[in-house]
């Protein structure tokens, strides 16, 4: 059953293999890295950092807030009880060490150092209640930021513990049956064709042609029909292209269509003798 909120650190019931690498130390610290073959899970008490380890240590922290949190937690202190002065001292030592080693310091660490320095200097001065009306005490600000950061650091750990696909949850599938694919044809509205036509004609600037204006569509349609009937090589009698049952209008339209086809050199007409039958044939070069 899905039970997403279960799974306290290290006791995940979902998959013991979920957590890779060396086991987590009990105090909840992440191992920083393996330096010269040894897992580094804790910073040395005397704050001495082997130079080759500095880079990994810096990488182990997610920024100055994370480093500060670490320093506080290492002393087993509640954030609310921290002695800002002590922590500042330690933090400064770290930053100085980084600096001494020509380490390219992240701007965020220096900014934090400046803030800590300010807090420390304030603490040396007598408290002036009145002056601080509209300005927040940097200590309160820092502690609030630390607390806020810690909430999300914890939330990130919680998310990491959630059962997840391909680690704890495996999806299933079965081979589909043989499927005859029928792709549905797109729908088109007549309106769309008219709009498309008017747009293309507007672009081509061809609306002014009188020729086009006069032309009845029925003639065009009949032209296509006649051409199709003439698609073979043979001659057709001219009169066979007319259909009496279409009435006078049909005869006129067919006649116009044939005239237009002749004009466009699409068909040729042949008359072998004067007043003899006229034959029509599609032009073939």
């Amino acid at each position, binding site marked *: 059953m899905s039970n997403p909120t279960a799974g306290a650190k290290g006791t995940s019931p979902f998959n013991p293999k979920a957590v890779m690498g060396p086991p987590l130390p009990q105090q909840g610290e992440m191992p920083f890295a393996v330096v010269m073959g040894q897992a580094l899970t804790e910073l040395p008490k005397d704050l001495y950092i082997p130079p080759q380890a500095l880079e990994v240590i810096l990488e182990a922290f997610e920024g100055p807030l994370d480093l500060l949190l670490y320093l506080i937690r290492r002393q087993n202190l509640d954030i609310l009880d921290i002695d800002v002065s002590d922590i500042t001292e330690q933090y400064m030592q770290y930053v100085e060490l980084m600096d001494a080693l020509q380490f390219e310091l992240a701007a965020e660490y220096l900014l934090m150092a400046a803030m800590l320095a300010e807090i420390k200097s304030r603490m040396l001065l007598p408290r002036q209640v009145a002056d601080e009306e509209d300005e927040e005490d940097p200590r309160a600000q820092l502690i609030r930021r630390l607390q806020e950061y810690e909430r999300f650091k914890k939330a990130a750990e919680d998310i990491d513990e959630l059962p997840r696909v391909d680690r704890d949850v495996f999806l299933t599938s079965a081979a589909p049956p043989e499927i005859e694919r029928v792709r549905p044809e797109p729908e088109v509205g007549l309106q769309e064709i008219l709009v498309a036509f008017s747009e293309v004609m507007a672009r081509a600037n061809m609306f002014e042609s009188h020729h086009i204006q006069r032309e009845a569509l029925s003639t065009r*349609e009949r032209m296509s029909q006649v051409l199709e009937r003439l698609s073979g090589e043979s001659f057709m009698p001219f009169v066979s292209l007319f259909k009496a049952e279409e009435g006078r209008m049909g005869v006129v339209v067919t006649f116009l269509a044939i005239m237009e086809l002749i004009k466009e050199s699409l068909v040729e007409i042949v008359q072998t003798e004067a007043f003899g039958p006229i034959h029509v044939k599609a032009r073939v070069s």
Partner: protein
Amino acid sequence: MSEINLANIVEATLFAAGKPLSTAQLREVFEEHERPDPDTIKEALELLQERYQSTGLELVRVASGFRFQVRQNLSDWVARLSEERPQRYSRALLETLALITYRQPITRGEIEEIRGVAVSSNIVKTLLERSWVRVVGHRDVPGRPAMYATTRQFLDYFNLKSLDQLPPLAEVRDFETLNADFGFAEPAPESAEAGAGTATDAAQSAANAPAQDAEKHISDDYESAFEQPDEDSVGDVISREFD
């Protein structure tokens, strides 16, 4: 929680694999000390075959091993799952179709001349495949290009008795007359509203953005017969997310 047993493990493994697994591969998921022999695996497979007897799935053996597959008699339903939404035709295709409609018989070259851009083969192919357009002859010019015309199926699709029922060219330019002529306005005023809206929008966008239009011509060259389907809008997604 269900029992952890051999059949269940084999079942889970086959469904998670997404491909056929051999008996040897199935044995691999067990640690050495608990690994069943091939015959035991086969027994489990037989048991599973029975388990799925009256379901929508079946355990089958194919060349590379065993797999669960959907029963063939359910293919109609499963097919609808992946049925593609009907695509929309591209503007280039609609313009080509419109030109064939109004200027038939017409060659590809003539269409290109009016549109000012090449007509892709895909467009012509799509129209021929849909049986909306046919070749009615070849123009007697070098290359003997095919002349295209519309078909009866085209008229049927648009519910027209003949091309005559389309509005005359002179009126197509004027969208307001077009709607009136077409009788869009008479039976359903609302749909006429919608129709007029679309037409006007299209006309406006065509008139308003000559620069975009020029770009469009270029892209037309590369355009296929279909438009890309629209992605779900973000708003759509988020509102459903919390359903």
